[in-house]
């Protein structure tokens, strides 16, 4: 648990490893390669890296054109630009079912100081609405690597949600199968379903709850679409659920789980960004302000269970 590494760094490293074994993999970036960490790939395989300049819409659609010739383009920019090029992703990538991987970094409020313009809190919501889109939100740098390989392995569009902030690496040895959640901790009173950076926070929250006599399961829902509905149903039948995500409570993991609960029964509380934009601040200060630290999450869950 000592090493800290951002999921974007795990992504950048994984691309280089992937590039060595799959020559169909190419990478596109929009002048952010030093931030999205595609710079590792551009140095290792300069002839397979295409900078598109500050022109995200063209980048996404060009990637679609490249995919149609048999290549596997990984396309990177900030997650906030998921909405900037949404129509390109819809009509250019998803509708023709092209093999484009959108690996977008700087998701969530943990972006920090850059503030609301750069903090994507709605990207999962809009990506979920697209037919055929797979959405992966890895919990740490190691899981990000596994997600990159899994994304390359499957045919079709993938949205990979990555973070800027360096966070502890704890997922060594965990399996990664798209659409199959990982149970990280068993519990009997409440099940926390979470993804991305909130997985570690939820594990720590479960630890705090245990000290107060509350037994919390923690489920790492690294794939938000297609959602592992079986695991949601199984836990909803046994205990109340809580979703924790660094995303708006509208349209994200919480609502994906809510749809399963609404149709199959169960109780659910959603924890996330409460329908507001972020702001500037240190990442830790923001996570605290928006109630996403282990302390705040465990307090919210305790209050909910009362």
């Amino acid at each position: 648990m000592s090493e800290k590494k951002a999921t974007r760094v795990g992504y950048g490293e994984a691309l280089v490893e992937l590039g060595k074994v799959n020559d169909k993999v190419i990478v596109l970036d929009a002048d952010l390669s030093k931030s999205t960490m595609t710079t590792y790939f551009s140095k290792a395989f300069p002839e397979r890296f295409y900078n598109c300049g500050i022109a995200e819409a063209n980048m996404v659609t060009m990637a679609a054109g490249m995919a149609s010739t048999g290549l596997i383009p990984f396309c990177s920019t900030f997650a906030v630009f998921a909405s900037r090029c949404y129509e390109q992703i819809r009509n250019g990538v998803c509708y023709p079912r092209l093999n484009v991987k959108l690996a977008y970094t700087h998701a969530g409020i943990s972006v920090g100081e850059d503030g609301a313009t750069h903090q994507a809190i709605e990207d999962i919501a809009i990506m979920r609405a697209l037919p055929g889109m797979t959405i992966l939100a890895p919990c740490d740098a190691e899981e990000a690597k596994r997600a990159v390989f899994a994304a390359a392995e499957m045919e079709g569009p993938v949205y990979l949600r990555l973070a800027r902030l360096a966070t502890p690496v704890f997922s060594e040895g965990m399996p990664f199968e798209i659409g199959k959640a990982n149970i990280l901790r068993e519990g009997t009173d409440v099940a926390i379903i979470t993804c991305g950076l909130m997985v570690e926070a939820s594990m720590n929250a479960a630890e705090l709850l245990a000290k107060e006599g509350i037994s919390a399961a923690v489920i790492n829902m690294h794939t938000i679409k297609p959602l592992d509905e079986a695991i949601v149903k199984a836990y909803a039948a046994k205990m109340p659920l809580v979703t924790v995500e660094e995303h708006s409570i509208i349209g994200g993991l919480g609502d994906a789980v809510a749809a399963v609960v609404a149709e199959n029964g169960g109780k659910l509380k959603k924890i996330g960004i409460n329908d507001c934009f972020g702001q500037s601040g240190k990442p830790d200060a923001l996570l605290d302000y928006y109630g996403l630290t282990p302390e705040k999450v465990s307090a919210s869950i305790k209050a909910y269970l009362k």
Partner: protein
Amino acid sequence: MDLQTLKATCTEIRKDIIYMLSKSGSGHPGGSLSIVEILEALYGYKMNVDPADPKKADRDRFVLSKGHACPALYATLANNGFFGKEHYDGLRQLGGILQGHPDQHKCPGIDANTGSLGHGVSVATGMALGLKHQGSKAHVYTLLGDGESQEGMVWEALMAAAHYHLDNLTIMWDWNGLQIDGRNEDVMSLGDFPAKLRAFGLDLLVVEDGNDLSQVIKALDTPVTPGMPRGILFKTVKGKGVSFMEGDAGWHGKTPNAEQTAQALKELEG
């Protein structure tokens, strides 16, 4: 190449466009009729494509960025053997392969899903880059509208095409001067369009009559400048070949009634 045969096919394509649109009661005649010579010069003469193997790896590609003009593309593909004309009756109908805008998974010979204006140059640029990356000799063609060029993304793509020296890419315009709300000049002026395109790094040709097959073919046969994407501005007439549709923006997205259809077919049959 037999110019007379290609010309005769252009007439067939125009008749098929009128038939299809009249039958479906929905679609875009004006911008379909203006591009017939360009499409037939590509599919009947210039492009390396095989109707028996429409997805073969080393084929030339065509992206109809102005996807609403797909009746012209459908008729061109059918007349060149990609599928049977019995599909015409299914244009824009439930379950048909001829969608309101082209679908590469439904219709043989379609290389890209288009119809959302502004996308095509980016798709074609990506294809040209991808083919070049893999050492293919294939050429990529795309055709867009003048009004469509008001989309900012077009210019992003032009920058990329020049930046990556895509001399395996030909970007063509159906320069008929009209769009849905009227003349380009009135809706949103393109200014000195050829100068803008040259400034973006295109090796540009201007064809005075893009509805004259021999001029179209001459432009397509003009050798490219190594390291530069080719641009071709085809001056065309919207609604070309049907007197009452020619040069009238009102026929952008309106289909002919029975009487108008009869008259159009009569004119085309000469």
